[in-house]
């Protein structure tokens, strides 16, 4: 192994260094300036992944780690706070990371402030913030679709839950609130069309709302029932391929929703091919259970011991599915039981599987070969978002 060889050389150098003296090195090491703080590139390489830490043992102190899963070392490149059931969302078009989070003036009590904090990708310092009104930002185990972008990433959409449901539309450029749209009975935000969003509703439908130029709710379109919430509900987090959201259900049905038009369109579903070896059966399991690479292949975290109530138990394999042919391309056996998966958007993608102990296992997505483990990246690695 190259790594072992390198280690041996390093050890040899250490030995020879300790045995030799200053004569071997006429020049001392240079003095180092203080203070010194690292910086990151403005646009992150596509081997980088944002790993969000719910930090359940100290919820007011959630955070996200920025991790280079493609490097042999120096993997953890930086961190940003994501407080109190917060949610983070990197911009793909400007050097900013948006964080929806919640603070109390005395940490656990006092005045509540909900805010979108805007972080600079290069310095990882806060550039600005936009205070969200009403103290109603939805607080739950991180789901990426509680904070999304629309209108060419100029506006943010924040999902609120009090338990009444509503969506706040935020102008990121103007740093101001545009509107607050009550949407009782529906959950989360899936950007739809040039300017608008869709929410999944409790009766198994979805409602799409187009926004006008001022950010106010325009026409709403509700779909037919497609989500069988009682018997076979969809996991809430889709894998996005362009504007198509690929959802998977508890029992392993893959469903495509087209979010490109003003109203989201159900494109139908297909069942994952049945596979032997389940006890009693294979089903998707975990938190973020589906991801997609640039080529549009889907990766689904699968649990062989599935039944009612196992949907968050995590999985032992990632199944690679080609939605065009509706076939199972490959089964990747994971080294460890994993909570969530995410594919990088590289030409040759890596598949990242997060473990309950906060470590990441990295696989070559094309071959399924194990590449590396990156230990102790966060506490509770619920969601991951690959750089794009």
């Amino acid at each position, binding site marked *: 192994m190259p790594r072992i060889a390198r280690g041996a050389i390093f050890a040899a150098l250490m030995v020879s260094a300790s045995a030799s003296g200053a004569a071997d090195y006429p020049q001392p090491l240079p003095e180092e300036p203080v203070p010194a703080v690292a910086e990151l590139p403005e646009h992150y390489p596509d081997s980088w992944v944002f790993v969000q830490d719910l930090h359940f043992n100290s919820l007011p102190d959630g955070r996200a780690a920025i991790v280079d899963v493609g490097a042999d070392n120096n993997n953890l490149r930086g961190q940003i706070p994501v407080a109190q059931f917060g949610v983070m969302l990197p911009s793909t078009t400007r050097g900013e990371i948006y964080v929806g989070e919640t603070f109390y003036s005395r940490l656990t009590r006092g005045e509540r402030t909900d805010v979108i904090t805007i972080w600079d990708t290069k310095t990882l310092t806060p550039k600005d913030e936009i205070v969200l009104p009403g103290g109603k930002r939805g607080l739950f185990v991180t789901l990426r679709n509680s904070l999304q972008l629309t209108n060419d990433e100029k506006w943010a959409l924040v999902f609120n839950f009090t338990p009444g449901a509503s969506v706040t539309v935020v102008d990121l450029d103007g740093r101001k609130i545009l509107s607050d749209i*009550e949407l*009782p009975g529906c959950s989360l935000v899936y950007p739809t069309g040039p300017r608008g969003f869709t929410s999944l*509703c*409790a*009766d198994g439908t979805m*409602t799409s709302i187009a926004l006008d130029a001022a950010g106010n709710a325009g026409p709403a379109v509700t779909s037919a029932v497609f989500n069988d919430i009682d018997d076979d509900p969809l996991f809430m987090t889709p894998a996005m391929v362009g504007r198509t959201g690929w959802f998977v259900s508890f029992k392993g049905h893959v469903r495509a929703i087209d979010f490109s038009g003003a109203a989201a369109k159900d494109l139908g579903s297909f069942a994952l091919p049945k596979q032997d070896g389940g006890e009693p059966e294979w089903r998707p399991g975990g938190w973020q259970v589906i991801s997609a690479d640039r080529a549009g292949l889907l990766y689904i975290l699968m649990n062989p011991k599935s039944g009612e109530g196992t949907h968050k138990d995590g999985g032992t394999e990632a199944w690679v599915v080609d939605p065009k042919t509706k076939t199972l391309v490959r089964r990747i056996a994971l080294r460890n039981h994993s909570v969530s998966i995410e594919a990088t958007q590289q030409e040759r993608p890596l598949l990242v599987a997060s473990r309950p102990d906060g470590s990441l296992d990295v696989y070559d997505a094309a071959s399924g070969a194990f590449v590396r483990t990156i230990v102790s990246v966060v506490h509770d690695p619920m969601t991951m978002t690959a750089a794009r």
Partner: protein
Amino acid sequence: MKWLAVPALMLATGAAVATPGPAGPDAMPGVANPVRARQHWILQCQGCHRADATGTPQTAPTMAGFVARFLQVPGGREYLARVPGVATAALSDADLAEVVNWSLARFDPAHLPADFKPYTAAEIGGLRSKPLRAEASAMRARLVAEFDETDVTTPK
């Protein structure tokens, strides 16, 4: 805490195998089995609306002493069945009609119109198939504005 003191335990009257007898039809119109209706209230509604159906603008709206007033204005009857918490509850049409009738009689008997005709399963089934979405709050505001402004029981 107040909600704990609510007479929630009336239902705990003995063995789970006991089949509760229906109340007199006059007591609660459209409620064949008040004990069952109450259990559906607890399991499907109370979590957000609280045991005594009091609410706050920040959480779920107040129903106690208020909810039957919707029946006094045009469109209110339809609103109560189409509001998402009702329309999308995980109950059959018949059970949903029963718990809506029960809630009206239990939490706001004073405003129940004398000629109130209970919701039927068929009526509820038709209305709930068109749940309110973004228009719900505007519709509610419009209906509430039509309530008698002089009525002291109207919460702000």
